[in-house]
């Protein structure tokens, strides 16, 4: 009874295609439990190390070789801390709100394209579904703040919800301009249109969307700023501003509940870095070389190992870009001061939305004039390369 027989025997249980079910549950477990959560934890450590370097101090180096296991220590401490639910808090909603917040941020990791065929769920409405899950986060924060029956957490929760809700519009406009250029909603489709342009290839890529046209560059900045605001990161972390609102909507959370919200925030930062890399910075594409046509010629026995190495190469290129973006987010945290509420709302409604719409119009005109070609392709044609 070898494993193969056991597995093939499985798919007749109740007639459900069990291997497919196992595959999807396994991919969910791997991406969420082995990628999103540990990386979220590591980010807390990286953030403190980066902050230490900016302020010329050493940062955590007690736990583990250079403090690498710091976040394990934090995690265990959080779990062992007492978690009190105040007397007149809504017990049911108080326990149910963090699962909404985490469902929104961790659930969208299904759409992160690590490699050509390596993606949680290659939906045809990829990026649109990611924005839909983003709306669950604001609902979870609002319910969490409301149910803790505390003036400060309610005000902080309302401000956080108003901020996240109103910054979803510039985010949507930036994604719209990417869709105008790439023509498809599925994440793998958007990434595949960003390959390095090959001379008169039928469906060749037009290199990274950021360099597709000048309007899309500006919309990348708008996407990045709106993503910062969505994750409540400085300079938009007014809802948790320690000084004014006593730590905003998570005033009443203690113990592991607070740990979950902090983990949710970092999972959001990583998620938006991954999505920004996938739709703006060309996912796993590098300039000048196209991975899928790269034949490494690695053959062991009769199995061709090229696809395996290609996938590893693609995933590492993708994760390198994500790391750069996450570093920039941390970098911004220790350089920019915090915005007031009215500056925050003015920036969104009076500056980012109009600029986003103008750049969306610019993108459409560019696609119409140059028939969807990017700056690089047009320049190549002028220089006679393509």
């Amino acid at each position, binding site marked *: 009874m070898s494993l193969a027989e056991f597995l093939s025997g499985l798919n007749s249980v109740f007639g459900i295609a069990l291997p*497919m*079910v196992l595959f*999807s*549950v396994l*991919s*969910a477990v791997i*991406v*969420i439990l082995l990628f999103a959560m540990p990386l979220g934890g590591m980010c807390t450590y990286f953030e403190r190390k980066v902050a230490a370097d900016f302020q010329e101090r050493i940062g955590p180096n007690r736990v583990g070789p250079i403090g690498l296991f710091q976040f394990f220590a934090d995690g265990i401490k959080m*779990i*062992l801390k*007492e*978690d*009190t639910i*105040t*007397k007149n*808090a809504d017990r049911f909603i108080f326990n149910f709100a*963090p*699962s909404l*917040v*985490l469902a929104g*941020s*961790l*659930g969208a990791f*299904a759409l992160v394209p690590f490699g050509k065929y390596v993606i*949680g*769920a290659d*939906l045809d409405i990829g990026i649109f*579904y990611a924005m839909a*899950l983003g709306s669950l986060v604001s609902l979870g924060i609002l319910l969490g703040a409301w149910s803790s029956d*505390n*003036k*400060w957490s309610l*005000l902080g929760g*309302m401000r956080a919800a*108003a901020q996240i809700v109103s910054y*979803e*519009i510039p985010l*949507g406009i930036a994604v*719209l301009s990417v*869709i*105008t250029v790439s*023509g*498809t909603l599925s994440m793998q489709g958007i990434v595949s249109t960003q390959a390095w342009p090959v001379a008169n290839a039928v469906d060749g890529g037009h290199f990274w969307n950021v360099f597709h046209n000048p309007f899309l560059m500006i919309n990348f900045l708008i996407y990045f700023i709106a993503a910062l605001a969505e994750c409540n990161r400085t300079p938009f972390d007014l809802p948790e501003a320690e000084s004014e609102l006593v730590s905003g909507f998570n005033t009443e959370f203690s113990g*592991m*509940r607070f740990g*979950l919200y902090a983990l949710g925030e970092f999972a959001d930062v990583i998620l938006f870095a991954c999505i920004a890399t996938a739709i703006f910075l060309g996912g796993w594409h590098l300039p000048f070389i196209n991975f899928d046509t790269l034949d490494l010629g690695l053959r062991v026995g009769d199995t061709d190992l090229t696809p395996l190495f290609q996938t590893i190469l693609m995933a590492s290129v993708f994760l390198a870009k994500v790391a750069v973006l996450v570093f920039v987010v941390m970098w911004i945290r220790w350089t920019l001061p915090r915005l007031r*509420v*009215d500056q925050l*709302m*003015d920036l969104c*409604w*009076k500056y980012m939305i*109009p600029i986003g*719409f103008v750049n*969306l119009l610019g993108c*459409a005109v560019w*696609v*119409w004039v140059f*028939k*969807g070609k990017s700056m690089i392709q047009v320049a190549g044609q002028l220089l006679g390369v393509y």
Partner: protein
Amino acid sequence: MLQQFGNALAFVILAAILPIAILTIAKFLRPSYPHAGKLMTYECGEVPKGSAYVMFNNRFYLVAICFLVFDVEVALLFPVMMLFRDSVNSGEGLVVFLLAFGFLFVLLAGLVYEWVKGDIDWVRDFMDRRKALLSEGQYKARLAQKGHS
């Protein structure tokens, strides 16, 4: 396509169950000595008075209303803008362009209206900043019209 939906659903279900699982695991591991002091809502050490649900600034509702309308606009533009590149290649790009941006500019008029009327100013009676734009006479007239001293 249903298989991809199944994968996405597996992600969402796992992500929703995770916090509940972690919290129940943590419930057994952690100490729990609730006494009156801990169970009071935190109010910088004071005894909390009054309910937490005070009536507050209705700027939140104007933001919620504006968000709803512009979110609908973005959601409606998604399928149309997705078609735009193919329609340009197949020759009818102008029609899609005019329809999409006609829709967009009608709603942008709403944003301009609110901007001019000062509805999306977060601080009510934002007249002092507006004063810089108006001449002295216009500002006095504006104040008189609003019935201020």
